[in-house]
Structures are given as structure tokens and as C-alpha cells.
């Protein structure tokens, strides 16, 4: 057993950490949050040039990484700096699905993604699907050489920036069935798309997307008709590793800021960290942080194992991150007091990233139930 990063990953981590420390301070990030685009084109290009996007794809797909630990290394650093740029949406989900299912032509898009020239959004969730990946009601119907899509997609992250949307639709069966789901690559300027975009609580943008007779060639289908669910689940597994690692990185920042604050802030004539009531709570956060680190390692290390084991590890990691993350975010704010409630203080954004990660691809409770179900299987 060996818990050291490989030399390449260590280099990736160092480079990315230096780049973000240099280019992504609180003021810069808060200006990005206030901007109409909700992200920085300059940072995106910078990340692409550093090879950060490429590190999320395997060599076979044109990248130089793509394993669980590559994802974990990248997203831990993004989480530490509170990065809001949509690497998970464009690369892990969008790029991941195209790489997994695309034909030769479609896969050309992966190269564009790695180069930083294309954004993608995964338009899968619907107004009544919550976290259920199978609940797809958007319809697809054949129309000559074309297919016509109708339906609504909910909280589609990165939708407005995306040049291509990956839209799921049901070819057959009922809303909750595993079979019958297909994916389609739809250019954003296709007629029939309506988007209502909005900023999100923890940064980034999303949109409610309506598909009203969106007509695309049948060749826009990604993979075989009605058989997309396993690929969706695999992409979401990677996204869950990314979310867990990002949360862990953010927890590192939250605990570091809190420790620093406890040692410097004085009340009643002494640093508040010398009060045992606070010192013990800080210790609890550090204990949970180590638990979180191990949960991310477990999840990342099982990305390529058989689905049941893999899924148990993922559910376990996301449940633990949800609980530990809530504790760290809430306690870090509480021990800071009012200052952490202000938008301009770094911890406020970090705490929001930690908390709102719990609303993507299943919250703490969802993953607890999933773990129970998988354990019984």
C-alpha cells in the first residue's frame, strides 16, 4: 500500500495550487461572481494551458490522466481556492459522456474541450426528478432523418455558456425505467431551445431549459438508442468523486482559516482559541477533515472497480462529505462570528461551496439510502 501521489500528480497539484494562489484571490473571485458570465474566460484558458482539463481525460481520449486520483487532485485544489469555473460540467460530465459514447466525429469535440475552446452542459435533471438519474420524461420522436425533442430540464449548470448541450430523452418505457434513455448532442443555437438563466447561490450559473420541438439529425444521438443509462451513471460517478474532492479541498480552507482566526482574534484579553470550549471544537473539525480525506481516497481509488463496490464507495464518500462538510461549514462560521457572514470574507464563499455541493447528484440523505440499498444487494 502506498498513499503518496505519483510524481506527475504531485507536479499537477503543485502547479495548480501555485496558479490559483497567484490568480484566484478573494477579490478576483468575487468580481467573477458579480460578472454577467459568472466565470472568467481568462482563468478558463489558463487552466486549459496548464493541462488541468487534459488531466481529466485518459490518453486514449486525448488527455493524460482521467483516473480517479487525477480527478481528486484537480478538484481538491479547485475546492481549496473556491473556483466557480465549470470544470465538472464541461469536462467530467460533458467531455466524459462524449468520450464514452461518441463516434469518431463526435469525439473530435473532446479535443476542443481539452483545448479550452468548448463548453458543454449536461441537460439531464428535470423539474420532478430530484436526484433520480432514471426519471426522464423528456420525449424523443423520429421524424424522417431527424429526431424531435420535447420536455423541460431543471437547474442545468453551465447551460448558457455551452456550445453543445447533452440532452437526455426517453425513447421508450415509463419515467423511472432504466431502459429507454438516450443522449443527444444538441448545438446551443438549435431552434426550439428556451433558457431562463440565473446565478447560483455558491457561484456559477444554471438555467431552466425548455425543449419545444427541438429537431436534430438522428446522428446527434450519443451511443445506442435507449441504452445511455450505464454511461450516465459512470459519468455521474466521476462527478461525485470530483464533488467529494472539491468539498474536501474547501474544508481544508475552512479549517485553515478558522485555526488562524482562533489563534489571532482576541476577546476577553486573550486569543479565543485558548478557550477550551472552542479549542475542542476546532479539534473535532480537524478529525473530520482527516475522515474526509480518507473518504475521497476510497472513492477515487475505486472509480474503475466493479459497479456495486464502486457505487458503495461513492455513496459512502458523499454521505460522509455531506455530514463532515455541514459540520465544518457551520462550525467555521460560528467560531468566526459575524465576519464569516460577510460576502467579502473568503470563508463565506467556501462555506457556500461546501454546503451547495450537497445539492448536486444526491444529498447526504440520498447517499445514505443508496449505501443501505447497495449493502443489502
Amino acid at each position: 500500500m502506498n498513499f503518496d501521489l505519483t510524481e506527475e500528480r504531485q507536479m499537477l497539484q503543485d502547479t495548480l495550487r501555485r496558479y490559483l494562489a497567484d490568480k484566484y484571490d478573494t477579490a478576483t473571485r468575487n468580481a467573477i461572481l458579480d460578472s454577467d458570465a459568472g466565470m472568467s474566460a481568462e482563468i478558463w484558458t489558463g487552466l486549459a494551458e496548464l493541462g488541468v482539463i487534459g488531466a481529466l481525460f485518459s490518453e486514449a481520449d486525448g488527455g493524460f490522466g482521467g483516473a480517479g486520483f487525477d480527478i481528486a487532485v484537480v478538484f481538491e485544489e479547485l475546492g481549496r481556492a473556491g473556483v466557480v469555473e465549470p470544470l465538472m460540467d464541461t469536462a467530467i460530465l460533458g467531455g466524459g459522456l462524449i468520450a464514452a459514447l461518441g463516434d469518431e466525429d463526435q469525439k473530435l469535440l473532446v479535443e476542443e474541450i481539452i483545448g479550452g475552446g468548448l463548453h458543454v452542459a449536461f441537460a439531464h435533471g428535470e423539474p420532478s426528478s430530484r436526484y433520480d438519474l432514471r426519471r426522464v420524461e423528456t420525449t424523443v420522436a423520429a421524424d424522417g432523418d431527424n429526431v424531435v425533442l420535447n420536455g423541460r430540464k431543471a437547474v442545468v449548470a453551465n447551460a448558457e455558456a455551452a456550445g453543445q448541450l447533452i440532452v437526455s430523452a426517453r425513447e421508450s418505457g415509463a419515467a423511472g425505467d432504466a431502459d429507454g434513455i438516450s443522449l443527444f448532442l444538441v448545438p446551443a443555437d438549435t431552434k426550439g431551445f428556451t433558457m431562463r438563466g440565473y446565478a447560483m447561490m455558491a457561484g456559477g450559473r444554471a438555467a431552466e431549459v425548455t425543449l419545444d420541438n427541438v429537431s436534430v439529425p438522428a446522428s446527434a444521438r450519443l451511443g445506442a438508442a435507449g441504452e445511455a443509462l450505464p454511461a450516465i451513471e459512470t459519468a455521474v460517478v466521476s462527478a461525485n468523486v470530483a464533488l467529494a474532492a472539491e468539498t474536501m479541498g474547501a474544508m481544508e480552507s475552512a479549517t485553515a482559516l478558522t485555526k488562524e482566526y482562533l489563534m489571532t482574534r482576541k476577546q476577553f484579553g486573550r486569543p479565543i482559541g485558548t478557550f477550551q470550549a472552542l479549542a475542542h471544537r476546532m479539534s473535532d473539525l480537524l478529525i473530520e477533515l482527516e475522515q474526509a480525506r480518507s473518504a475521497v481516497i476510497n472513492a477515487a481509488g475505486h472509480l474503475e472497480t466493479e459497479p456495486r463496490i464502486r457505487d458503495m464507495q461513492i455513496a459512502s464518500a458523499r454521505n460522509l462529505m455531506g455530514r463532515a462538510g455541514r459540520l465544518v461549514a457551520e462550525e467555521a462560521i460560528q467560531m468566526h462570528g459575524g465576519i464569516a457572514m460577510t460576502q467579502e470574507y473568503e470563508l463565506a464563499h467556501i462555506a457556500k461551496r461546501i454546503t451547495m455541493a450537497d445539492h448536486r447528484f444526491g444529498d447526504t440523505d440520498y447517499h445514505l439510502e443508496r449505501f443501505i440499498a447497495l449493502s443489502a444487494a
Partner: protein
Amino acid sequence: MDLNYSAEELAFRDEVRAFLDEKLPKDISAKVRGRGHLTKQDMERWHAILNEKGWLAPNWPEEYGGCAWNAVQKHIFDVECNFASAPRIIPFGLAMLAPVLMKFGNQQQKDHYLPRILNGDDWWCQGYSEPGAGSDLASLKTRAVRDGDHYIVNGQKTWTTLGQHADWIFCLVRTDPDVKQQEGISFLLIDMKTPGVEVRPIILLDGAHEVNEVWFTDVRVPVENLVGEENKGWTYAKYLLTHERTGIAGVGSSQAGLDAVKRMAGSEIHNGRPLIENPHFAARMAQVEIDLMAMSTTNLRIISKAAVGQAPGVEASMLKVKGTIIRQEINDLARRAAGPYAMPFPSEAVEGDNDPIGPEGAGVVSAQYFNNRKLSIFGGSNEIQRGIIAKVTMGG
């Protein structure tokens, strides 16, 4: 002991309901329910309606225009107002300054300020906290130096809630720096229009502008604006904080919040069934409800005691800690119930002319969750309250 409402109490409840049904403006309750942004005018309008009815100041004695309600009536009023989505009564003038003036102010101050508070002529804000003096309030540094018939005030206050609307601020200032911290503090009333007073907004993590910094640069304050005696301000401040704490259990707010969670969980579908039927979610909701049922009775027990003249001490601290834990847990359940629809930023999800995004009420749950982290920080943080409980019950 009798846990049921008496016939009189039931009649009072019906009277409150009928009043709210008739007089609470629908546009205001809609904003409160959807957590849209209440303007200064909205809040003043509601105060005026309550004042007209004589119900604006439940805690004031009748001689000053109060309601002369007993503890149960106040509780009923609080619960009904929350269920009807009435805005909260802004406490700074009515619930904080007024009791101090009644007990420690001179006759001229009572005659001048109290009717103006009731009639909404003056909007008050609170000048207690400073950047270096949060939980350790007595270490405050804002200086007031006597100069003839005036004090010259220099310094900075922070976390001043709704200070952007205020006409006046009641301030703790240091008038004697050479004695023990608590013994050199005075209680001063300052007109916000005085030259040298500057209000700077603080934007909170949910994007809200509800607190401010207030800066004082050579602000001249007439000596008649001193409340009570010079250097006795700490006594008045502590008296005021006791009043601040009694309302903070937030029973009505929690009940209304839990109700909203149930509504959302009843309509959200999870694994093909309403979320409210999910054993895990239902168990968490039930636990909060059980805690709230007990705390509601604790709250009534304590305010009943206060009504017969026993000042709430350690019990107020207990209520504050438990009450805020419960409210924050309900906020957590609400964001979970909303699922992915907790993610949109509230100003875009609930304001403007568009339909709200997601299920009813979902657009504000994350903002409320983050905003209400303040509950365990302000008004004496929960750590300070636990310290008080420990000191009172175990000495030291």
C-alpha cells in the same frame, strides 16, 4: 396546571386571526412567504396598521400605549402572526430602546421619544457591536468626550441591522477610559443626520443588505441625549440585552418554518413517493417537531414567570440556545426538501415578474439557511449564553 387554551384565550386567538385576515396587506404577506425583499415602506405600513389597532407594543405597559397582554396572549399573537406571514415587528425602538427609556430615561426623554417610536416617526437602530468588540461587548472603544454642552463622538459600530433606514441610533460609548471596562460606558442617543455620521453597507453571504457599519467622526451630541447617568451605561445595556433575548426563542417562526417544510416535502417526489413519506426525512422532521413542542412549552413557562415580575436570567439563555438550534435545523431541512432547486440564487429565483423557479418556496431556502447562521452568533452568541448558564448554575 392546564395546557388547554381557556375560552377567553380561544376568543383572543379568533380575534387575532380575524384581524390578520382583514388587515394584513396581501402584497406584504406574499413577500414574507416568498421571502421577497421587504422595503422600509412595507415595514412602516405594517407597524402603522398594528399601531392603529393598539397592538404594536405587546411588551409595553398600558400607560405608554402597550397592550397589557399576558404571556399566553403574547404567545398566541406571535404564533398567529407567523402563520399569517406577517412581517416581524422591528425591535430596535419598540422592544430594545423603549424598555430602557421607561426604566432609566428622564421624563422629558420618555415624553418625547416613546410616542414617536409608537407612531413610527423615528426609526431606531442599535449601536452596540464594534469590529474589536463582538462577544466581548464591554471592550468597546467608541469614545465620547465631553465638550461643554456636547459630547464629541469618534469611533465605529458594526453589524448595525437596518441602519440604512434609521433616523436615530442608540449607542454604547466609552466616556471614561481609565476605569474598569464596564464602569466607563455610557448610553447615548444620536441623531443619524448629525454631521460626521456615516453608514456603510455590509453585504451578507446570501447577498442581503441588512447590516451596516456606522462610523462617527467628531460627531457632536447634545448632553441631554445621555440616558441615565454617565458611566452607568453597562447596567442599561445588560437590561436591554435581557429584553433582546426573550423574543429570540422564535417559537412562531419555527412553527411556520416547519409547516413550510412539510408543504414542500408533501409535493416533492422522491423515489416515486412524496418526500414526506420517506422514513429518513420523516424521522428528521419529527425530531425537530418534538424538540419544538417541548420548547414551545418551555417558552411559555418562562414568559409566564417574567410576567409576574421575575426577570428571566439563565432561562433566557437556555431559550436562545435551544431556539436557535431548532430554527437552524428547520432551515437545513428546508434546503434538503428543495433538492437541486435550492441552488438558484434567490433574487433571481423569486423576484421580478417571472414565475418563481422550482417548487413553491424553494427559491429562498438556501439564502435563509445561510442568513440564519446569524441566529447563533448575534444577541450574545450561543457560546456566550452557555457561559452564562454555566456561571449562574455552577458559579465561577
